[in-house]
């Protein structure tokens, strides 16, 4: 090690690695539904895209994690974004390309990607019934 720059380079390379190992409640959480329904409709490439994008863009306060069945199997793969103090945003039928867009627009620029959000899904068949059921 002949210079501080070399040390810094290693640190930056490793930060994404070890940075995962802290659970701070002020973090934004990006949750991917990874139950059988999610996996079957392609949640794993979505999850992996999100993880690598977040790391590449060096978004330090974002945690990407997974959860079980969210209950909207027909809209999988589902990605939910929880920002501290804000209502959660639910994206449906996500694929790796959409995931990149969500990172770029929502997580970096703070603009929700309306066209992939659940309420747009009202046009989908069965959604109204589901909401009714949910409100019970």
């Amino acid at each position, binding site marked *: *090690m*002949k*210079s*501080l720059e070399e*040390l810094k380079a*290693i*640190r930056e*390379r*490793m*930060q*994404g*690695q*070890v*940075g*995962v*190992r*802290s*659970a701070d409640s002020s973090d934004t959480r990006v949750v*991917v*539904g*990874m*139950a*059988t329904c999610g*996996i079957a409709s392609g949640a*794993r490439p979505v*999850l*992996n895209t999100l*993880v*690598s994008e977040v*790391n590449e863009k060096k978004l330090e306060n974002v*945690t*990407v*994690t*997974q*959860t*079980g069945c969210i209950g909207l199997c027909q809209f999988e793969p589902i990605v939910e974004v929880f920002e501290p103090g804000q209502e959660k945003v639910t994206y449906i039928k996500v694929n790796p390309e959409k995931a990149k867009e969500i990172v770029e627009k929502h997580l970096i620029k703070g603009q929700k990607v309306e066209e992939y959000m659940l309420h747009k899904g009202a046009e989908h068949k069965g959604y109204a019934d589901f909401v009714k059921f949910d409100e019970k």
Partner: protein
Amino acid sequence: MYRAHVLVCGGTGCTSSGSAKIIDRLHEELKKNDLTNEVAVVKTGCHGLCAEGPVMVIYPEAVFYSRVSEEDVPEIVSEHLLKGRIVKRLVYREAVSENGIESLNDTVFYKKQTRIALRNCGVINPESIDEYIGTGGYEALGKVLTTMTPDDVIQTITDSGLRGRGGAGFPTGLKWKFASGNRGNVQKYVCCNADEGDPGAFMDRSVLEGDPHVVLEAMAIAGYAIGADQGYIYVRAEYPIAVERLRIAIGQAREYGLLGKNIFGTDFSFDIDLRLGAGAFVCGEETALMTSIEGNRGEPRPRPPFPAVKGLFQSPTILNNVETWANIPRIILNGPEWFASMGTAKSKGTKVFALGGKINNTGLVEIPMGTTLRTVIEEIGGGIPNGKKFKAAQTGGPSGGCIPAEHFDIPIDYDNLLSIGSMMGSGGLIVMDEDTCMVDIAKFFLQFTVDESCGKCTPCRVGTKRLLEMLEKITDGRATMDDLDKLEELCYYIKENAQCGLGQTAPNPVLSTLRYFRDEYVEHVVNKRCPAGVCKKLVTYKIDPEKCRGCTLCSRNCPVNAINGEAKQPHVIDLAKCIKCGTCIEKCRFDAVYID
């Protein structure tokens, strides 16, 4: 890029309960599920909750699994890692609340702790220098070498108020200052005392196992501060995992040029070598330790001259304990004010304790100085098992003393502990409940010092032996009140006349138990009774004929056939044959056996 990290404890406790097999199985199952490129498996150092081992933490959710077995691994992989469903039955019980599952840092065990010396323990892979650098490792060394003068470094450590964590609490900055004269003109050494030998202490082992690079970095910083180019780590050979990880760490640091010539392109050169001790307690005493590194029999020598003047190979030397070293890089990076803002007036920062004895959460904790014993035992430690009452806690091992229940709310720091006749010691904290006999405890520690006395000076070699004999006389019921006075007198004589710390502190367990539990000694002497029912010569086992159902369970289990009686008739213990092993009490389902 891994989306999840599975941290499995590779400390001594969890290793002995099978964590290595769990790691193998994890790799196997991840491969089966095609997850090897998505999930990282990391073998870490101690997480602290040794009682709940083997432990596993999965990030990013920070879910804490306890008492994991090899058979649980397939479920964890297919449920948690593949489908994202937490395996509730394996989650550490304290982390399960009405609102679901809490993250690790919200459990009482961790919430009340401040981890500085242990910050990387259980978080990084101790065998990877890159992970250490990823958490800011070697930045303090870089800062020191490129922006600070050696005197600045010493001033920073002095201002932080850091005191030696080996037990005596000598100010670290002052120690460095004493050794700092004549830089560049004389050979000097930096040593690390990793000869942790107190019964019940395992803090240093855990730091070495969990974060070995922090010690290397800190020693290099001290080398720069006093003008030394060589360091030695004296570690006991009974710590094989710690030794192995230190070897790996030293090799990696040399490869990266963080040890060796011209570190960070400066003129500063520093290297470290390991020296293994054979496990003699006295070699934890600084002069004996250095004599042992020199290759001689590990015996202490008189001070002065102090090591800062004439130490290893007759050269100025500083020797600090593992935990002291573990604090140094953070103080350099965060500043002395940050460190001094924690703790009490004269004891700054935090202290690591190894919790053991009659306590639920046996393990490793780091608390700010000034935390009360009550918080440590009742909250972090999870209280005493089986609803028993707290009687006393022993700090400082065989050199320390007991803290009775009346001092339960005393803020723990160096001076408070000394004032109540105990000492900080290296950090072993042994909890005792109402079933503990205090005379027996004193006897236990004396037995230890008698075994470990090096034999060089008479007060220690002969004195501790005589002390032990007097204690045996008491627990055998042969002592008189006169013996109690003699016991106390001999204690003070040894304290004043022994040559090194081992002998000078050896009577402490006797003196402190005499101070707080004199009535228990008197009960043994006058009434020939052991109130806790521990001292075998003073108790007899009896069977209450009213309660005995004649189930014959006790007589069938008695190892010496001392229990007689017909089935369905009250049994009787033959006192002449009874060896007082306690098996009958354990076996009896009707509470019929009692100690008189």
